[in-house]
């Protein structure tokens, strides 16, 4: 039932007016009415969303634009500073707003489509998976062998982002044998730069971050996408989130994303950033 049908029904059944007030006061209507879709993307998160010469660019930004276009509304972006974890981010961007009073967005991009995570955050609805993300190890083949046993890399610096899964994995695995070789950086981009300039023999980050670094290097790196024995999370799907009372907006955007996936638009966006698009592979998959 679309909105027009519902309104027609309400007109013929005046007694249900009290109920219908809630049924039609849906955020999808509100988005259509105001003519803008407010989209939350992470601040400084290449290749997904970041500022290039002052301009907001990235896969999530382009996809958000395409989603708004399909709805026939204008996109409006909210740049979100990442909090300690994404439960906090959902609160700040989707259902409550930040402690400083910044309003929430209609939809947040780049949210893991994970069952347990969704159950724990019942004020948000996770939907519209559009990509499957994973971790990858990159090496300069002239210096390091990326394909052998990871413990063979001992003695060669491996760059990571501090406090990321690659950090915990490499410092903790194999009885800590690689701990002394792990070099910490404040971002994945800095870790990749360390590899490219030859300071480190390898770097580990998400596949998208590795591919972005590889593109910047102009050099042929060997990228190992697995296996990583003992790694807690081999891959996870990425989708969108809306507030729990905006389910109709979420469903509509889920359809929009499925359409953009089917007609190759999403693959095209990824290709324009030289990032491999991996179709989402299912919920709660480890």
């Amino acid at each position, binding site marked *: 039932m679309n909105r027009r049908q519902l309104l027609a029904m309400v007109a013929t059944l005046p007694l249900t007016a009290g109920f219908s007030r809630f049924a039609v006061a849906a955020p999808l209507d509100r988005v259509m009415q105001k003519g803008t879709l407010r989209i939350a993307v992470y*601040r400084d*998160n290449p290749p997904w969303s970041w500022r290039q010469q002052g301009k907001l660019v990235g896969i999530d930004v382009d996809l958000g634009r395409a989603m708004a276009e399909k709805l026939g509304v204008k996109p409006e972006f909210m740049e979100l*500073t990442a909090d300690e974890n994404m439960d906090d981010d959902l609160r700040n961007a989707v259902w409550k707003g930040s402690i400083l009073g910044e309003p929430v967005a209609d939809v947040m991009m780049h949210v*893991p489509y994970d069952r347990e995570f969704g159950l724990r955050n019942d004020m948000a609805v996770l939907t519209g998976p559009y990509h499957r993300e994973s971790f990858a190890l990159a090496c300069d083949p002239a210096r390091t062998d990326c394909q052998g046993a990871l413990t063979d890399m001992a003695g060669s610096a491996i760059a990571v982002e501090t406090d*990321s899964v690659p950090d915990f994995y490499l410092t903790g695995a194999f009885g800590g044998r690689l*701990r*002394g*070789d792990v070099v910490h950086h*404040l971002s994945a981009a800095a870790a990749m730069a360390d590899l490219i300039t030859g300071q480190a023999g390898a770097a580990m980050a998400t596949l998208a971050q590795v591919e972005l670094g590889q593109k910047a290097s102009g050099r042929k790196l060997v990228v190992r996408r697995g296996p990583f024995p003992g790694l807690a999370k081999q891959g996870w799907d990425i989708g969108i989130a809306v507030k729990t009372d905006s389910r109709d907006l979420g469903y509509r955007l889920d359809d929009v994303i499925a359409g953009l996936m089917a007609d190759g638009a999403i693959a095209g966006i990824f290709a324009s950033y030289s990032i491999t698009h991996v179709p989402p592979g299912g919920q709660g998959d480890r």
Partner: protein
Amino acid sequence: MKRILLATCAMLGLAAATPTFAAGPTDVDLMNDAATTGDVLTYGMGPQAQRYSPLKVLNTENVSKLVPAFSFSFGGEKQRGQEAQPIVHDGTIYVTGSYSRLWAVDARTGEEKWQYDARLPEGIMPCCDVVNRGAAIYGDMVYFGTLDAKLVALNKDTGKVVWSKKMADYEAGYSYTAAPMIVDGKIITGNSGGEFGIIGKVEARDAKTGELIWSRPTIEGHVGQLNGKDSTMTGKLNASWQGDMWKQGGGATWLGGTYDPETKLIYMGTGNPAPWNSHLRPGDNLYTSSTLAIDPNTGEIKWHFQTTPHDGWDFDGVNEFIPFDLKKDGKTIKAGAKADRNGFFFVLDRTNGKFISATPFVSKITWAKGFDKKGRPIYDPANRPGNPVEAAQGETKGKSVFAAPSFLGGKNWMPMAYSQDTGLFYVPANEWGMDIWNEGINYKKGAAYLGAGFNIKPLYEDHIGVLRAIDPATGETKWEYKNKAPLWGGVLTTAGNLVFTGTPEGYLKAFDAQTGKEVWKFNTGSGVVGSPVTWEQDGEQYVAVLSGWGGAVPLWGGEVAKSIQHINQGGSLWVFKLPKA
């Protein structure tokens, strides 16, 4: 006095070069703050932060008659936790509030003199509410730090900005909430930031200009700064950290410090190490969860004492170290005391950091069985959250343990007080534990992440908060007051045999300092999580405290939330005195 001073200046031909307003407190005034009852010039009511007043106009006999003189509302919608301690000087109360605001209020009438609102940028991410713990005053300026990690100096009479300095990059997660401290013309600050990617620092700036004089990183391997040049390395590279993990090792100094004019040392507490999972960072991880004694002139570390070596429970060691003279076995020892997040009450020799004692000040501690003679904890290995690498097949998280205290601490930020009359410390403690485990799957910035999982639980059904009177010579509890909700406000004690502290239920309460008997209470309308002060004005004794519920407790929820769910928010300064006969 002001007029006389101006007249004197004019006679000396200095008027042209002198500001129109009277000069404020000098270094001598600040160092004597604990003894001068007509003002409150420093955070802690004296550089040693004993929070003790020699005033006894107000005492256990007459405190029941204490009534409000006035209340001043912070207004607006920004009613969050009000954790500040007021500063009182020359008939003006200077007080900071949530969202980086500062007011000058007439101490007699409660009228606003001026207000300063920091313009906060978008995208700041303070970890634990938008609090501020107070201002500093020196000469004709008042100082405070902002949530976007700026240090601001304002003219004390006009509220106009004299200088403003960026202490750290808020976009990298830095913030500032502590009250700054002034030592010998230098403004001393720590730093606050998120849990990862940062290292703690202590910094000294010229109070007149805001120019950096020295900077001391708290993690070994980092090199300090002095007068624009590299000075010395903190500790020894890789002595207690493997690889390059010291680079982002934590140790934030988010609560600021105390200063002892006798030993001429700054005492600064440092936060927990990063990352959470202690199995990834074998070693003591110096100087996290420690107290550092620092030379105020050079920024050199004179001694250190680590209260939780190789911390695996987020037992942040930032708590205040209060210098006092310990009378034990017929001797007087220049000592200092610290009630740590980890549940132990430490007494050290403040001249050299030598360990004297560590005794529990909460009813249950599971992570260590005690401390040995050298001051090392006797760990209970069964109560360290397990290494996820050793997790069972199919499990991603390490073994969960029940640890007490919880990471919110046997005592959190709220400062204790020391009475020179009773010789007791009055410690605002909390009785809670936590299930804690390493590395449950979570997400950070769109990527899979392995954090620590925890669930905070009260230890008792009828109370969490306990105000305890602790004898530092024996570690014994002389009396205790139990409170349903967690205690989250500072303590004040006076020569009138009184101890004051606030409760989340909205009360400012007074207790008999010797017996713990509750002798007065007043409900301020919102939770009290600020630190009370007292001073003398026009021959009367005043007491002031902030009201406004917030801080870290309401952000955590769980079973703790039950004791606080009905507390209303607010934001005001309350001032009390005895009615004139």
